[in-house]
């Protein structure tokens, strides 16, 4: 998903440090925020944890929104005919790496769920799995953001210089 603005049709140019910071913030804050909200459901100090968790999730969505309008996301999502050969070469490499990582995450998740099923008889070793609508909502949006931003994340970590901002 690339959000194109009239002011910056080629997306906002980010420095390598900013781009990497946004990616790390997105991938770290979202799961931490979700886990805090999950813990909040089971503790007495639930409200404080819930607010902290929600704040982290909102911060992650802000990072996602900035990335969605960036030149990295444009490079990752733009149709091939609108990219030049260097952008395409970089995008193809990043897409391959993103595919590998995403497939790995899916495979590990399935192994986890299988393991949970196998251990379901053991009362002393119970593994968590999404059960409620809120849980599945959190998993869905996490997976969706991961799928939408992974290629841009690899581009961010490959980037060595701040690009010229072409929108101004």
């Amino acid at each position, binding site marked *: 998903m690339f959000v194109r603005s009239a002011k910056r049709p*080629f997306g906002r140019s980010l420095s390598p440090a900013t781009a990497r910071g946004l990616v790390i913030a997105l991938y770290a804050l979202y799961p931490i925020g979700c886990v805090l909200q999950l813990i909040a459901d089971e503790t007495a100090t639930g409200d404080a944890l819930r607010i902290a968790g929600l704040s982290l999730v909102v911060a992650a969505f802000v990072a996602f929104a900035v990335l969605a309008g960036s*030149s990295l996301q444009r490079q990752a999502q733009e149709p091939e005919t609108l*990219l030049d*050969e*260097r952008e395409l070469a970089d995008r193809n490499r990043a897409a391959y790496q993103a595919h590998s990582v995403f497939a790995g995450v899916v495979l590990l998740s399935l192994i986890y769920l299988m393991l949970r099923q196998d251990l379901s008889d053991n009362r002393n070793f119970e593994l968590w799995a999404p059960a409620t609508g809120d849980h599945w909502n959190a998993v869905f949006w996490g997976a969706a953001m991961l799928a939408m931003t992974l290629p841009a994340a690899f581009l961010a970590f490959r980037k*060595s*210089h701040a690009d010229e901002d072409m929108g101004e």
Partner: protein
Amino acid sequence: MSRRELAEAVGVNPQTIGYLERGDYAPSVELALKIAAVFSAPVEVLFSLEPFPPLARTVTKQGDS
């Protein structure tokens, strides 16, 4: 000639010209031929097995001689 002008002349993103200048990207033969045509230079001058010396050093040497 600015990056933007060269990029428009050869049909690439101006950022790509920056990548070429820094040696972060090796152009395809097609792009190299287009760039060579813009400067009316033979395409061989765009490729080298050895890294090109910094432009500033080349200009300084020319100024000294």
